[in-house]
């Protein structure tokens, strides 16, 4: 029983790491209907910039500030050079654009900082840590706490501020938002900037866990099942989806692995996602259109 709980809680905590990446997608998808494949590349770009600055002797918060600034500039450039000229185009065009964008950002990051693997130490040990008789990873707890704080901050932003209400207005109806003087471009830029910030946080945590390297951008693929289960338009959904994926892949690995064969945790989430697609295509928290009869 204790072992089961350890696996379960470990899985749930690890799942929140997926949620962090998924939230970046949700933000942009909600506000502009764009499935931003480049979110993974943004995570890599942020982590690589941060770690390279650290290695050059820049102190932690200085590096954080500079990286954040570069993410904001990236958001600005993407809005100006990619989204604005492509406005009103079909979603598949925008998706292809972000696909291209993801390779450009990855290439740019590696041209700037090189392609070698960097270790990133945030100063949080990955030592197991005992809570109520269960051994938990200190790093996972820290990551979960960070994710919780981030979600709290985002929900305050969305529900309590003018920017947040404008963001949700644009997500609901762009033409109506235009008609009352909301500037779409400004809203999109803010969304990409916030997604860049979320990417930075995800990049630091994932970078510390896996090392900062090219494959970091592949965590987009891990975020996909989370989005399918949680829904593309709900931050709460991204959290719940992450928890479900994290817990189920670890449990599957531990309990089904010996029967079916190891490595099941790499593909089990996709099985789960496919099942969800068949049963509930909008995801658990996916926004359905409100229809009155």
């Amino acid at each position, binding site marked *: 029983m204790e072992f089961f709980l350890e696996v379960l809680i470990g899985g749930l905590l690890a799942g929140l790491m997926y949620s962090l990446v998924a939230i970046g997608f949700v933000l942009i998808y909600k506000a502009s209907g764009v499935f931003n494949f480049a979110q993974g590349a943004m995570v890599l770009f942020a982590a690589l910039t941060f770690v390279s600055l650290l290695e050059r002797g820049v102190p932690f918060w200085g590096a954080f500030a500079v990286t954040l600034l570069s993410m904001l500039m990236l958001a600005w450039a993407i809005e100006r050079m990619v989204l604005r000229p492509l406005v*009103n185009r079909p979603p598949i065009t925008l998706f292809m654009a972000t696909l291209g964008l993801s390779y450009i950002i990855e290439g740019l990051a590696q041209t700037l900082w090189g392609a070698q693997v960097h270790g990133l130490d945030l100063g949080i040990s990955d030592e197991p840590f005992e809570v109520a008789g269960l051994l938990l990873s200190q790093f996972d707890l820290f990551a979960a706490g960070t994710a919780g704080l981030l979600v709290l901050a985002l929900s305050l932003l969305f529900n309590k501020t*003018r920017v947040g*209400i*404008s963001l*949700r*207005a644009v*997500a*609901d*109806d*762009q*033409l*109506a*938002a*235009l*008609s*009352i*003087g*909301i*500037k779409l471009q400004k809203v999109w830029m803010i969304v990409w900037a916030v997604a860049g910030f979320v990417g930075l946080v995800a990049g630091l945590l994932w970078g510390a866990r896996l090392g900062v390297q090219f494959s970091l951008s592949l965590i987009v693929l891990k975020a996909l099942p989370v989005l399918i289960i949680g829904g593309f338009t709900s931050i709460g959904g991204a959290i719940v989806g992450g928890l479900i994926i994290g817990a189920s892949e670890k449990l599957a690995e531990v309990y089904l692995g010996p029967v079916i064969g190891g490595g099941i945790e790499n593909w089990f989430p996709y099985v789960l996602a496919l099942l969800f697609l068949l049963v509930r295509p909008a995801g658990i928290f996916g*926004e359905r*259109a*409100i229809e*009155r009869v």
Partner: protein
Amino acid sequence: MAGSRSIVEALLRVDDIEVVYDGAILAVSGVSLAVPQGGIIALLGANGAGKSTTLKAISGLVRASRAEISRGSIHFKGLASTQTQPSLLVQQGIVHVLEGRHVFPHLTVEENLQSGGFVRRPGRQSLQAGLERIYAWFPRLKEKRKVQAGYTSGGEQQMVAIGRALMTRPSLVLLDEPSMGLAPLIVEEIFEIVSQLNAKEGVSFLVAEQNIPVALKHAHYGYVLETGRVVLSGTAHELLQNNALQDAYLGKTQ
């Protein structure tokens, strides 16, 4: 009132505009009209006559609908406005209430109204005062203020859409088909509020309508559109006497 002012002083003047969709489809060809300060002007005609396109040309929303003004000019408060961004036009005092209401369905009624206020960057108290003003005009919205707008009735959504537009503190409201899909009693209630807003606060209205009797009951002056041009105009009284109006109403072409 509409007739007594010269065209030069008009709040809004549209001169011979032509609007083309996707570079090929002509939606409006040669519409001219004027809205005097403090007027309620009706834009009448059947489906597809070009009423909505004309309003979108004025509010600058044509460009968001893949269309452009290919000829003619529009002046608002004396300034040429065909190249002006929609958000700037709202700041200058034009607001467009879209056909089909277009409330933000997942936002509450109150958030919908608030969103209209942001363009003027009011302080917290001034935004609250703006809300209270709207609730005074539409008491029903106050009861529903915590409800998601998508779950309110059609009439309430029309009130939300008008209230949200009024939050921008406009001098001219472009109102597209306010009667669409609503029960006659509700339509009458909404037009009554429009008349009151006009009389008490001096807000000018350009109202596109298919429901000619209701529109002309409240408007001072009207233009009749047919296949993208103005075929008839006159005071509400003159138009009501005109037999040709029946043809336009039924959408007879040529």
